[in-house]
Structure formats: structure tokens, C-alpha cells
């Protein structure tokens, strides 16, 4: 189904169009939520919440806007809401918990990994990357993930998240710098903290 007919069907509250829409976008929404909230259970919950919101409030979607941009925004807001709700029930966050969360976030050990040394190295790298991403603020993270993994241009991120291009650049720059600081040892060139003007 083409996007325009999908939009028309959704606007009518047509379940078939909604299902088509979900099938088309479920992976994008799930992975965006997973990147933001950090575990598969919450990611599914948030992604379902996003689709339900879309279904209930499709009337607020401006027909001249880009559906995927709108969806990114709804997902981002739902993820932030979820993180805020979780913050109100603080969990103990010791090093051991961070370690286990990082491993869990990276999922189960990679399937089909034959060489244990490679599997262990990959697992460690994933844990470090995950830990590094945890150090980035939700806004910076959202911008970074959209640019780096979803390949959205800066202006598209700005329109998706309702920010100026300048703010997007600023968030992204801060995110990459923080990641560089955290992953310092992983980068081929280390010890070059850029702080000059």
C-alpha cells in the first residue's frame, strides 16, 4: 500500500491500513525505542504505545508532513515519557548492575559466533558501546541515533524532533564528543581531547 493510501486509510480509522502501517514501521519504531529505553521488554511496550497513540490520534497528523518524521517524534516523546516514569521509581545503579544491564542491552551472545575469543571481544565492545551511550543525555542520544543509524539528515532530525538545525548540530556534536571520551581506548587515536577554539 502506498503512503498516501495508507494515510487515507489511517485517517478513516481503517484497521487494515493500521495493520499495514504497523507492519511497515514496527522494526523502525521498536529499534528506536530500544535505543532510547535500553531493553527489549520496555522497547516493545513503548513501541506498542507509539502505535496506539498513532491510531488514536491520527487526526492530529498534518497530511503534508512526512509520516516517518512524525513517527520518529511520537516515538521519541513516548521513550522520554517512559524514561521519566522509570526515573520516578529509582533503581539501585551500582557498577555490577551497569555491567549486567550493558550485557543485557547487547542481547544474548551473538548467534553463530564460532570463535569464542571473537565472541568475547564482540561482547565486550558491545558492552562498552552500550555503556558509552548510557552517558549521553536522552536528547543527545536521540539525535545521534537518528543521524548515525537511521541516516536522517540534520534538517530532517530537526523537523522530526521539533528542534532548530543549530540545536541538532549542537546535540550531535556533544554526543559524539561524549562517546569519544567514553570509548577513548577503542578509538585508534586516543588521548586527543579536543577542547581548543
Amino acid at each position, binding site marked *: 500500500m502506498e503512503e498516501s493510501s495508507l494515510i487515507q486509510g489511517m485517517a478513516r480509522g481503517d484497521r487494515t491500513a493500521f*495493520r499495514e502501517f*504497523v*507492519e511497515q514501521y*514496527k*522494526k523502525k519504531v*521498536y*529499534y528506536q525505542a*530500544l*535505543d532510547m529505553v535500553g531493553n*527489549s*521488554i520496555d522497547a*516493545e511496550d513503548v513501541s*506498542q504505545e507509539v*502505535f*496506539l497513540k498513532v*491510531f488514536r490520534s491520527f487526526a492530529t497528523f498534518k497530511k503534508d508532513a512526512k509520516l516517518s518524521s512524525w513517527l520518529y517524534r511520537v516515538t521519541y516523546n513516548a521513550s522520554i515519557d517512559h524514561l521519566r516514569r522509570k526515573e520516578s521509581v529509582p533503581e539501585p545503579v551500582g557498577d555490577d548492575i551497569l555491567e*549486567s544491564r550493558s*550485557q*543485557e542491552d*547487547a*542481547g*544474548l*551472545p*551473538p*548467534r553463530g559466533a564460532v570463535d569464542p575469543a571473537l565472541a568475547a571481544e*564482540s*561482547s565486550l*565492545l*558491545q558492552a562498552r*558501546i552500550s555503556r558509552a551511550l548510557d552517558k549521553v543525555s536522552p536528547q543527545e542520544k536521540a539525535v545521534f541515533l537518528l*543521524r*548515525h*543509524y537511521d541516516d536522517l*539528515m*540534520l534538517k530532517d532530525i530537526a523537523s522530526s524532533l521539533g528542534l532548530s538545525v543549530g540545536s541538532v*548540530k549542537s546535540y*550531535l*556534536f556533544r554526543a*559524539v*564528543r561524549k*562517546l*569519544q571520551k567514553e*570509548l577513548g581506548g*577503542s*578509538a*585508534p*587515536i*586516543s588521548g*586527543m581531547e*579536543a577542547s*581548543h*577554539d
Partner: protein
Amino acid sequence: MINCRISKDRMIEALYGELGPSEKERFDEHLSSCPECASEYSVLGATLRVMDRRERPDPGERFWDGYWDRLETRLEREETVKVPGPSLGARLGRAFSVLPRWSYQAAGAVALLLVGILIGSRLINPTGGGAGMETAAVSAPAGAVVNAENFIDRSKVLLLGLVNHNPATEDAYAFDLGRKKTVSRELAAEAPALRNALNQRGQKRLRDLVSDLEVIMMQIANLESGQDVEGVELIKQGVDRRGIFLKIDLDRMGREARSEDVNPPKNKKI
């Protein structure tokens, strides 16, 4: 020629290839004459290449296949909760408003008669065997609940075997992960239908527990062949963090309470 401040402002666009040709040329020109900006650009580029190696765990085909069903169940549940029909009082009020006066008198007489019969039957048969059986018939768990509880019991047995396993002291062969994976796969395959069948009010907790167990069963089914100590450990942590055994115990206690309501123990004092 641009200066360091402008270079920094354009660094992100340069890293992601969003600079126009002339801007890129000026940017490169600056880097060739400024070792500090050049090294910063290089370090940040290296960081992005590390981030390229990030993997996102795929929850698996079964997860994606069942995604719509789970979403639809939730949608229907929310619609049921948020758009309730008129209340019982309102419906009765509406129904009574169209009835003639004599019908109230007839209904009153029938009600009195029924009360009399009920009191009489209690006096004649104080043990209330017949009434008890009626209650049992009304509140007997529906098939969906029985199936879900059976699923929970089987999942619990499997999980107990998993969480109580100590790879340091127990034999991997006796642990038999392969068998556990097979059973988990079967249980995970049963779960979507069970969840869909649990669509009545008051079944949310049971449905959520089935969902939690489904995810864990999928994780067990996806463990590496062999011993996969690390994978088992992650699952143990997940079981613990989600309080799965507590939820299973609460469900069991609820079941027992319902069962006692239907068939009170003979020595129970009222």
C-alpha cells in the same frame, strides 16, 4: 580560509558528509593548516567508526510474527476499558422506564417467591450442596484460564531447573540445555494463542504473566547450543529482575483462594 571556531561548527556536517563542495573544500583547507582541528576531526571520525560496529539484538522472527497480535490484543483491551457501555444502573433505568406499572408488581411477587424458595431450601438442606455446585459451575475457570495456568506451571518447572542450576558444581550433561530449549520453544509457540484468549476483564495480570514468560521462553529457546553459561546467567538475572517467581506465586495463591471460595474446606469455621 575559515578559522577554528567555524571549523568546529562545521565538523559534524563534515563528519556526516553534509557539507556542500565549496564548504568542504574550505574545511579541508583549514584542516591541512591546523593540526589541532585535524586531530579532533580524526578522533571523532574514529569514534563514529567504532559506533558503526554497534549491534542491535534482533528479537527473532517469532517476536516479529506475533507483534501485530500482541498489539491488537492491547488495542482491544484499551478500547474495552476506555469505552465502557452504559452502566448497569443506566441500562436498568432505561429498561424500567418503558415498562408498565403492573410489571413492577409482578416482578416484586416473583422476587418474593424466589426469596421464599431460597430460604426454604437452605432450611431443608443447610449444607447447601446444591447451591455450592451452582457456584462452582458459575465461577469455574474458563478454558483459557486453565490453559494459561497449565502453561505457567510448565514454565515454572522449566525455570526452576534453569535458575537452580550451578554450572560450577553440576554436570552440563545432566542439565540438558538442549531439552530445555526444545520445551521453551514449544511453550513460546503456545503463548500468543493463550494471550489472545485471555481477553476478559480481570485477566490482565494473568495475560501479563504469560507475556513475561513468553519472552523468557524465547530467550531460552535462542540460547547457544552447548552450555552457554553466560546466556543462562542473563536469563536468570532477567527472571529475578522481573520478579517472575513472585508473580507465579501470586497467581497460584489467587488460584487457591478462588478454589477455596468454590469448595470451602469442611473444617473451615465461618
